[in-house]
């Protein structure tokens, strides 16, 4: 196996495009190293991104926050900008893995690993984030996050393409509420059993727009589009919440694994939705 430690993005992309057998990008290593050890991946070369300091940043713009792909989860968890403008992303970062893992794991790695349970995905889906990629011929793309995941550990990224940054819109309207829940088997170091992030534009119980991001209930992190459609443009009533819960159970496609059964996950999708809706509409009903 060969090892490269490029100092610049340009060189990374050259290496990816160079076609030197199978090359694997490694950032924090918290996913790649167990895969190497378990021989579930056997690359010909490792391209170590840990020295690409230029891709480690959290920048606040007028309308969005830009996160460099190499930003660590620990940096996100302690960022005031993220806490202020994307609190559900901040919560998810604070609950990912454990402190030792958060110091290494990166946002780009969490997304390109594309675990169905990727912790940063549900909030980013709810926040309607975009993923900026670049390839060997310096072609840049802005991929809406709901089009990024293709299957368990599969994304739309081509072999010569990598994530450069993530753009998270700043939602500043007072009518926009967000909430997040992750269910795990324990508090620390747990892979989520199911997680849900909610973004809603709501005024006096009337829902103008809603986005529901879900983790660990389908082959990829998903949006619950059918359920979203049921709520959009409607008055939120107990009956509607009940109906949405039933729709969500149909919309998710969970599996049974060592952490939970498919039935449990399906049931909890509906329960979490009710909890989150109650949380975000609590002030409206006061």
């Amino acid at each position, binding site marked *: 196996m060969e090892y490269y430690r490029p100092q610049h993005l340009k060189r990374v992309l050259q290496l990816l495009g160079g076609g030197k057998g199978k090359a694997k990008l*490694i950032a924090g290593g918290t996913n790649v190293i167990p895969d190497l050890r378990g021989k579930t991946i056997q690359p010909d070369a490792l391209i170590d991104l840990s020295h690409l300091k230029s891709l480690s940043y959290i920048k606040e713009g007028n309308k969005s926050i830009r996160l460099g792909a190499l930003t660590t989860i*620990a940096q996100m968890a302690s960022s005031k900008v993220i806490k202020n403008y994307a609190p559900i992303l901040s919560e998810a970062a604070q609950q990912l*893995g454990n*402190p030792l*893992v958060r110091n290494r794991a990166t946002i780009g790695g969490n997304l390109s690993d594309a675990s169905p349970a990727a912790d940063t995905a549900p909030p980013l889906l709810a926040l309607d984030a975009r993923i900026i990629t670049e390839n060997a011929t310096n072609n840049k793309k802005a991929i809406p996050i709901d089009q990024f995941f293709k299957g368990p550990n599969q994304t739309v990224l081509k072999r010569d393409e990598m994530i450069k940054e993530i753009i998270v819109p700043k939602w500043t309207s007072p009518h926009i509420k967000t909430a997040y829940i992750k269910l795990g088997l324990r508090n620390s170091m747990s892979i989520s059993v199911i997680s849900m992030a909610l973004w809603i534009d709501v005024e006096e119980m009337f829902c103008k727009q809603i986005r529901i991001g879900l983790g660990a209930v389908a082959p990829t992190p998903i949006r619950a589009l059918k359920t979203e459609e049921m709520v959009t443009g409607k008055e939120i009533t107990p009956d509607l919440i009940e109906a949405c819960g039933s729709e969500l159970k149909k919309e998710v496609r969970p599996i049974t694994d060592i952490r939970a059964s498919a039935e449990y996950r399906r049931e909890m999708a509906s329960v979490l939705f009710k909890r989150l809706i109650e949380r975000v509409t609590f002030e409206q009903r006061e």
Partner: protein
Amino acid sequence: MSKTKLYPLKININGVWKKAKVAPEESLLKVLREKLGHTEVKEGCGKGDCGACAVLLNGKPVNACLTLALQADQQKVVTVKGIGTPDRPHPLQESFVKRGAIQCGFCTAGMLVSAKNLLDENPNPSRDEIKKAISGNLCRCTGYKKIIEAIEEAAQKIRQTIYDKR
């Protein structure tokens, strides 16, 4: 898979620069233990669940099993031996012994590394902050109570030292 090449590694461990030749896929943990003689860093699960192999990499606690040795090239690593010595132990090391926060001792090296980072950043942590800081370190003997008490005691000692210096 093609034949694995070896690459030169130069790493600062507890203040001393050391060299080795390592393969790309070798973890920092394996190289510390098997090539550089730092067996005070323990291997528990080997996949980031237990924290027994925690070391400070440029001041931040990380799992050495989830870091490539080559990712620590030219960087600073501190192991439990770099935190204090038998002659001049760190307040944490003293209070772990005094409070009986050690039974089999296997998690201790990693626990101390996580606790050291916590007290460096926050010499007055709440019980909850202590629990969070060591949440990546598993202990199967003491049930954490004595460990948490030991960290609290060390924090108090450190605050006293800071106060005395003023």
